[in-house]
């Protein structure tokens, strides 16, 4: 008969923090944390001390003082009498505009180029390779400046449209391409509500409702197909549902297009897409599209060839193989790097200052900084704003990614 006796209880000694593997990692982490905190503390203290030496205090009161400068592209009401805060908001909206436009165009271009790069047509595939290598190996700033220079130097000035011996003319009397940007007809309502924003909201709501109904129709068609094996023809119904309600609303509210007209120094009326916007938009999109194309290509190539062969054996046509078998699987590979490309594009949009596009870097971190001398405050705010935008994009894309992901059972 044996008795099991507990081993003598080890009492905790201080040296165990260093020599006992159970505690050592914790010790190291605590030391690292203390060191890091001390470093951050020192940074803050140093900044405060230097600010004090310069006789400056951290204050955000300047945000409510009149900005005093004008901004050309503004989506919200703004004049030189508005506050610096308002100017910053104008800048944020301009950043968002370029980010949304850029991401959309870059995605479309990227997918097309990525697919074409895998084309069996030798010439097409090679041209796309050249495109990708050319764009992603030259800094985006150069592309932006180049696009701007092309706009300014090759397009005619508005005064070239003037007079009987005009050297330039408008396209269909509606679109004027000048070295100050492109002027296109602008839609407006003659008999809607007073607020333009409200009018557009109504149009958007109606259109969204149409899309919802179209989806219902499709779901029912699918249900019918599953029950009977025959898919009812619904495309004319879908098309009608999509177009007719929106068209009626637009008609009722009296949609009209105002074409730009040369008056005085500039074209008046219509929508003015400034050359800074166009140059930045094109350059950022073309540049980012090269990276997205590579993502798309890698996504498609990641799908085993057996998949498309199997689909072919089942009798699917090539375009259906692409849309039903290959792309849904490829998307899972494409989306995560796509998120980081969207983030890159948004952050690269801060190069806008090179062409005088008034984004958040140009307004808050540019002119406001300079006129008020609040370097630290404006830069901190700017960083916070970019961080927020980036995190929002990340969050939205992660939700999309989660929905596209393979559901594992």
């Amino acid at each position, binding site marked *: 008969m044996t008795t099991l006796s507990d081993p003598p209880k080890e009492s905790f000694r201080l040296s165990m923090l260093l020599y006992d593997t159970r505690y050592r990692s914790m010790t190291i982490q605590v030391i690292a944390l203390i060191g890091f905190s001390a470093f951050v503390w020192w940074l803050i203290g140093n900044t405060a001390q230097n600010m004090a030496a310069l006789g400056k205090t951290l204050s955000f009161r300047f945000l409510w003082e009149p900005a*005093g400068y004008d901004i050309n592209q503004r989506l919200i009401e703004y004049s030189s009498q508005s506050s610096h805060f308002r100017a910053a908001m104008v800048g944020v909206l301009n950043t968002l505009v370029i980010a949304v436009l850029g991401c959309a165009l870059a995605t479309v271009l990227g997918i097309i180029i990525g697919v074409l790069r895998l084309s069996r047509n030798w010439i097409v595939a090679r041209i796309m390779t050249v495109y990708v290598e050319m764009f992603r190996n030259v800094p985006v700033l150069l592309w932006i400046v180049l696009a701007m220079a092309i706009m*300014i130097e090759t397009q005619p000035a508005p005064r070239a449209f003037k007079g009987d011996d005009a050297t330039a003319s408008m396209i269909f009397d509606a679109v004027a391409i000048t070295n100050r940007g492109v002027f296109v007809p602008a839609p407006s309502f003659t008999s809607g509500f007073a607020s333009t924003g409200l009018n557009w909201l109504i149009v958007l709501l109606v259109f969204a409702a149409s899309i919802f109904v179209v989806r219902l129709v499709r779901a029912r068609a699918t249900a019918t197909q599953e029950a009977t094996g025959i898919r009812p023809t619904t495309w004319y119904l879908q098309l009608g549902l999509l177009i007719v309600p929106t068209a009626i609303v637009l008609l009722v509210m009296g949609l009209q297009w105002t074409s730009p007209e040369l008056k*005085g120094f500039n074209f008046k009326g219509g929508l003015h897409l400034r050359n*800074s916007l166009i140059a930045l938009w094109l350059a950022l999109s073309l540049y980012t599209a090269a990276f997205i194309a590579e993502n798309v290509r890698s996504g498609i190539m990641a799908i085993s060839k057996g998949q498309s062969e199997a689909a072919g054996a089942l009798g699917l046509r090539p375009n259906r193989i692409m849309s039903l078998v290959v792309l849904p699987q490829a998307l899972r590979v494409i989306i995560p790097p796509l998120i980081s490309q969207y983030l890159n594009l948004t952050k690269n949009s801060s190069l806008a200052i090179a062409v005088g596009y008034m984004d958040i870097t140009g307004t808050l971190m540019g*002119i406001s900084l300079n006129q008020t*001398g609040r370097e630290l405050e404006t830069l901190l705010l700017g960083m916070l704003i970019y961080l927020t935008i980036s995190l929002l994009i990340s969050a939205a894309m992660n939700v999309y990614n989660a929905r596209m992901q393979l559901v594992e059972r």
Partner: protein
Amino acid sequence: MNKSVFIGALTAAGLAAAAAPAATLDEVKERGVLNCGVSTGVPGFEAPNADGEWEGFDVDVCRAVAAAVLDDAKAVEFVPTTGKTRFTALASGEVDMLSRVTTWTFSRDVDLKFEFVGVNYYDGQGFMVPKELGVTSATELDGATVCIQTGTTTELNLADYFRVNNMSYEPVPIETQTEAQQQYLAGACDVYTTDSSALASVRSSFADASAHTILPEIISKEPLGPLVRHGDNEWGDIVRWTLNALIAAEELGVTSANIGELSAAAGDNPEINRLLGTEGNLGEMLGLDAQWAVRAISAGGNFGESFERHIGENTPIGLARGLNAQWTAGGLMYSPPFR
């Protein structure tokens, strides 16, 4: 052992970074070079010449200070700054002084914590347009596209001017003079606005200068001058009185031609004697030697000589003295007495 070295180094770094800023004069002497902030290029005021050496009306002020302090007019490191980066460069100590067509305003002096030591050019904001537009007055500019350098006082004046006169305009913000020139010449903007001296300077560099006209309206006061940081008054005094020495030299008839003779021995005019150090100890009061002003004036001549050489009527820029003549000639240039 290693850790204590690390902590020691960290403490040293902390102390070094936190130490109160040393006197600028000592720093400059120790470095042996004056860091002078200039613009990225305004011909006549500051621009590199064919040999890559900076020269111009503002550059002469830097050289005069370097000559007074370091006895070498060439011991200047020119730091090009844009309208946006200039104040940060000065506040952070990257440059010891700015001499770059910068307007003296209340908020820059008081809120941004700088010290303007004087005015070396009385300027005002003007407009330049191509003659073919047929514009003869700034009041006809309603709806025009205006090229403007960001981060300048001109930007604010422009907004005020158009608002007060109930006119609209489309601002095209640009960073440097070169960009402005490119956009303006291509017709991407109808008007270029900045200080009228700079307009003259830009126009002088155009292939066909006669095709452009500077409108008669001057919409603001732009006193341009060198500036230093708040808080180091000794250094501020040196820059201020170097500038005054150049202005006083012109008034007193001291030129780079006769300065050798005048400074050799005390003459009849006591003020010249005090200025050139043959009498009294003004240099010593500044923390320099007696010959400081002699060197400053010899570096690029007196105020008038520098003006005529770089931006005067016989240069491509062709600016008249106007407000910038000596007070004795009906201008505003007036140095306090050297006494």
